C-alpha cells in the first residue's frame, strides 16, 4: 500500500509537471507551401541600397572561416551600408550540437527573436539540419525573386545543396580533390612532377610512386612516404572505390540494397593495401595532412580548403598542384561544397536573403577568391582568367602554379560526390552507413598484415564482408 501511494504521488507529480511545462515542442503537421508563402509575404525583395536592417550570422571559430566570412561581410556592407551585421561565434568543437540545442530551446519557447538568421554549414551536415527543420527551403525565395537564378552556379553544387526537391543551402564554393606535390622532394628524387593539365593514368601514377619511393627509402628516414592522403574520408574514399567499379548502395526493384561486397571493392582495397605494403602510404591518414605539410611526403591529396594552412605552416617551400590521378579503370574526382543556410525561423528574412544572394554574387565571390580558401561556385568567376582565385599567389607556391587543377574535369561525368549513395538513404541511416564505409578502409590498412591480407577470415575479404553486413543490417531498420 505504501508503495502504491508513493508511485501514485510520483505519477501525479509528473502529470502536473507535464501540463505546467507545456508541450511547446510538439509541432502540428502543417503545409510547407502555406508556411512559406506567409514568410515570403513578410520578406521584401525589392530593396534599395540604403535599406536599414539587421542581420545575425553564426559561424565557428576556425581561422579560415573567420577570414572567409569577413570577406563576404565587408563587401556586403559596401552594398548595404545600413544593414547592421553581427557575427555570433561558436567553438568548432561543438558547433552543430550547440546550434541544434539553441534551436530546441527556441522551438520550446516559441521565441525566435534572438536566433541567428544565417549560419555556415558543411554539406554533410545538411540532412541532419533538414530533419530538425532548421533550414529554410530557399527555392521558394528563388522563385519569388526574379533577379536571382541558380543557373549561374555550378549545377552539381546546387544539386548537392538540395534535398527532396528543395534547395536548403546556398553553396559558397566548388571544392574538388586535387593532388599537391612537393617540388623540392621531386627535384631531389629526380622524378618528373605531375602534369597540371592532364590527370595521370594508373600506370603513370604507379610508376611515379615507385620512383619516389626508391629515392625516399634510400634516405633512410622512416618518416618519409610518397603519398599523404586521408583514405577513411568518404570524400576521397568514394571516388576511389567508384573508379574501380564498386557500388555502395543501389536501388534494385525499388528496394535499397547494399552491394559493397564485390570483386570491384576487393580489387580497390587490394591495390590500396599493396600501396601500403610498398610503403607509399603509411596508414589511413588523417584530415590534418601533417605528413605533407611537415615535408615528409612528396604528394598530398586534399582540397583547396587546406591551401592557406599549408602555406602558413611555412615548411614546404615549393608547393605545386595537379589534378587527381586515375585510380582504377574509370576516372572519378570527388567534389563538394560548404555554404550558408537561412535559419528556418530567421527573424530577419529580408536581410538574410540579401546576404545569401551576395555570397554568390560577383563581388562576394571575387572577394572570397582573394582569401585563397576556395574556388568560386559562380560560373562566370570560374571562367574568368583574371578572377582573384586563379591569380592568387604566394611565396611558397611553385612558379607556374596552375589553379586549373581545381576545376579539372568540372562539369563532366567524372565529378562525383557522396550524394551518389546518400540519395538512396533516409537521413537517419546516413551516419551509420558512412561510419561503416569509412571504418572498413581503416581496419584493412591497420589490422591486416603483409602475409594475411588476402585471407578470407582475417584479411581484406573479412573486413569487406563486415562492412557489407553492418550496412545491410542498417538498411533493414525501420526508418521514419
Amino acid at each position, binding site marked *: *500500500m*505504501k508503495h502504491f501511494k508513493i508511485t501514485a504521488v510520483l505519477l501525479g507529480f*509528473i502529470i502536473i*509537471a*507535464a501540463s505546467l*511545462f507545456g*508541450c511547446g*515542442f*510538439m*509541432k502540428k*503537421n502543417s503545409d510547407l507551401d502555406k508556411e512559406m508563402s506567409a514568410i515570403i509575404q513578410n520578406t521584401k525583395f525589392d530593396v534599395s541600397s540604403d535599406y536599414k536592417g539587421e542581420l545575425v550570422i553564426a559561424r565557428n571559430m576556425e581561422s579560415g572561416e573567420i577570414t572567409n566570412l569577413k570577406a563576404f561581410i565587408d563587401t556586403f556592407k559596401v552594398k548595404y551600408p545600413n544593414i547592421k551585421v553581427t557575427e555570433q561565434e561558436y567553438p568548432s568543437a561543438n558547433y552543430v*550540437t550547440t546550434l*541544434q540545442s539553441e*534551436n*530546441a530551446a527556441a*522551438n520550446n519557447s516559441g521565441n525566435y527573436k534572438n536566433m541567428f538568421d544565417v549560419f555556415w554549414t558543411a554539406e554533410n551536415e545538411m540532412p*541532419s539540419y533538414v*530533419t*530538425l*527543420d*532548421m533550414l529554410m527551403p530557399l527555392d521558394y525565395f528563388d522563385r519569388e525573386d526574379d533577379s536571382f537564378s541558380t543557373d549561374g552556379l555550378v549545377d552539381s553544387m546546387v544539386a548537392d545543396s538540395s534535398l527532396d526537391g528543395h534547395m536548403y543551402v546556398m553553396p559558397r564554393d566548388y571544392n574538388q580533390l586535387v593532388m599537391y606535390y612537393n617540388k623540392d622532394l621531386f627535384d631531389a628524387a629526380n622524378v618528373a612532377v605531375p602534369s597540371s593539365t592532364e590527370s595521370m593514368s594508373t600506370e603513370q601514377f604507379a610508376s611515379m610512386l615507385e620512383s619516389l619511393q626508391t629515392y625516399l627509402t634510400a634516405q633512410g628516414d622512416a618518416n618519409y612516404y610518397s603519398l599523404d592522403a586521408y583514405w577513411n574520408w568518404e570524400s576521397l574514399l568514394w571516388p576511389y572505390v567508384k573508379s574501380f567499379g564498386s557500388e555502395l548502395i543501389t536501388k534494385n526493384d525499388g528496394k535499397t540494397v547494399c552491394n559493397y561486397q564485390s570483386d570491384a571493392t576487393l580489387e580497390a582495397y587490394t591495390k590500396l593495401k599493396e600501396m*601500403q*605494403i610498398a610503403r607509399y602510404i*603509411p*596508414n589511413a591518414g588523417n584530415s590534418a595532412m601533417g605528413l605533407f605539410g611537415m615535408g615528409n611526403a612528396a604528394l598530398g591529396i586534399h582540397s583547396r580548403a587546406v591551401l592557406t594552412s599549408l602555406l602558413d605552416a611555412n615548411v614546404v617551400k615549393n608547393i605545386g598542384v595537379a589534378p587527381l590521378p586515375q585510380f582504377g579503370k574509370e576516372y572519378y574526382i570527388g567534389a563538394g561544397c560548404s555554404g550558408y543556410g537561412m535559419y528556418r525561423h530567421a527573424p530577419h528574412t529580408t536581410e538574410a536573403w540579401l546576404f545569401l544572394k551576395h555570397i554568390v554574387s560577383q563581388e562576394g565571390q571575387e572577394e572570397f577568391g582573394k582569401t585563397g580558401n576556395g574556388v568560386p561556385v559562380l560560373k562566370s568567376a570560374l571562367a574568368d582568367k583574371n578572377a582573384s582565385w586563379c591569380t592568387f599567389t604566394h611565396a611558397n607556391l611553385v612558379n607556374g602554379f596552375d589553379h586549373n587543377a581545381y576545376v579539372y574535369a568540372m562539369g563532366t561525368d567524372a565529378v562525383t560526390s557522396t550524394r551518389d549513395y546518400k540519395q538512396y538513404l533516409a*537521413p*537517419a541511416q546516413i*551516419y*551509420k552507413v558512412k*561510419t561503416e564505409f569509412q*571504418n572498413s578502409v581503416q*581496419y584493412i*590498412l*591497420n*589490422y*591486416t*598484415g*603483409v602475409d*594475411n591480407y588476402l585471407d578470407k577470415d582475417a584479411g581484406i575479404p573479412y573486413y569487406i564482408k*563486415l562492412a557489407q553486413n553492418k550496412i545491410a*543490417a542498417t538498411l*533493414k*531498420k*525501420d526508418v*521514419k
Partner: protein
Amino acid sequence: MRHTYSKRMIKNSLVSYSFLLPVIIGMAVFAMYPIVMSFIYSFTDYNGSFATTAGIFNYAEIFNFGLSGAGREVFNSFKITFIYVIASTALSMVVGYILALFLQRNIKGMKVIRLLCYLPVLIPGFVSGFIYRDIFAYSAMPVGNGLINTWLGKLGLGKLTFFGSAQTALASLVMTNLFGVGGGMIMLLAAFGNISPELYEAARIDGAGYMRRLFFITVPLSTPILFYNVVVSMITGLQIFGTMASYGTGIEDSLYFIGIRIYNTAFADNNYGLACAEGYLLFMVTIALSLLLFKFSGWVHYGED
C-alpha cells in the same frame, strides 16, 4: 497502513527536512525539468527539435527483436556494458584496496609516492584519449604501432592486439581503467584514517598479527567506503560513454556501450525520443541493481563499536 507519528517525530522530521532544503530546492529547480521532460520525450518522436506524434512506439521498438527493430542491438549493448561494469568494478576495488594498504604507511617519501600514484588521474580527458592510443595502438603492419607494440616488436615478441581485435578490446579497456585506481585510493586512505589507532593498539597487545588486524579491523571498518565504491562504480559504469571520443564504438562494436548507443541514437540518428526511452530503460536497470545492492548490504559495518 497509516502510521501515527508522535508530535516529537513530526517536529524532528521538520528539523531534518530543514537540513535537506538545499538538495530539495536543487532537485526541484534543476533536476525535475530535465528528468520529467526526457520521460515525456520518450513517448514521442522528438528528434531534438520538435515532435509530431506521441505513443509508446519507442518502447515497442526497444523490445522489437526482429531484424528491423532496435531490440537486438540494445540488449547487446547492455550485455557489453554489464561485462565491463562487473570486470572493472571488481578489479579496481581489489587493486585499489591493496594499493591503499601499501600507501598507508608513513615511511619517508610516502607523500610523494602517493602523489605519483595519483598522477594518472590528473591527466585531462582530452589528452588521455590519444596518450593511451599512442601507447596501446596495434597495427598488423610495421607502421602505426603504439609504444608497447613497438617495444615488443624490438624484443622479438609478438604484438598484442589491444583495441585492434574484438576479442581483446573490452579487456584492454578494463586494463586502461586500472590506471585511474589512484583516485579511489585517496578515499580509502581517508577511510583508513578514520579508524582509531587505539583499536590497532589493543589488537596488537592482544597478539594479533598483520593479517588478523587487516581482516578484523581494517576491512570491516572500511566497508562503508567499499560499499560506496561498489555502488558508484556501478552507477557510473553503466552510463559510460566517454570512450566514444577515443575508440568510437570499438572494432566490430565490441565497445558499443549502452551509453554510447543512447548518444548515437540521440545525436547521430536524430532520434531523441528513442534515446530517451533507452535511457529510461537504463534508469530502471540502474535502480533495480542499486536496490539489490542496498538490500544485500548487510556486510557493511558502520563505525560504532
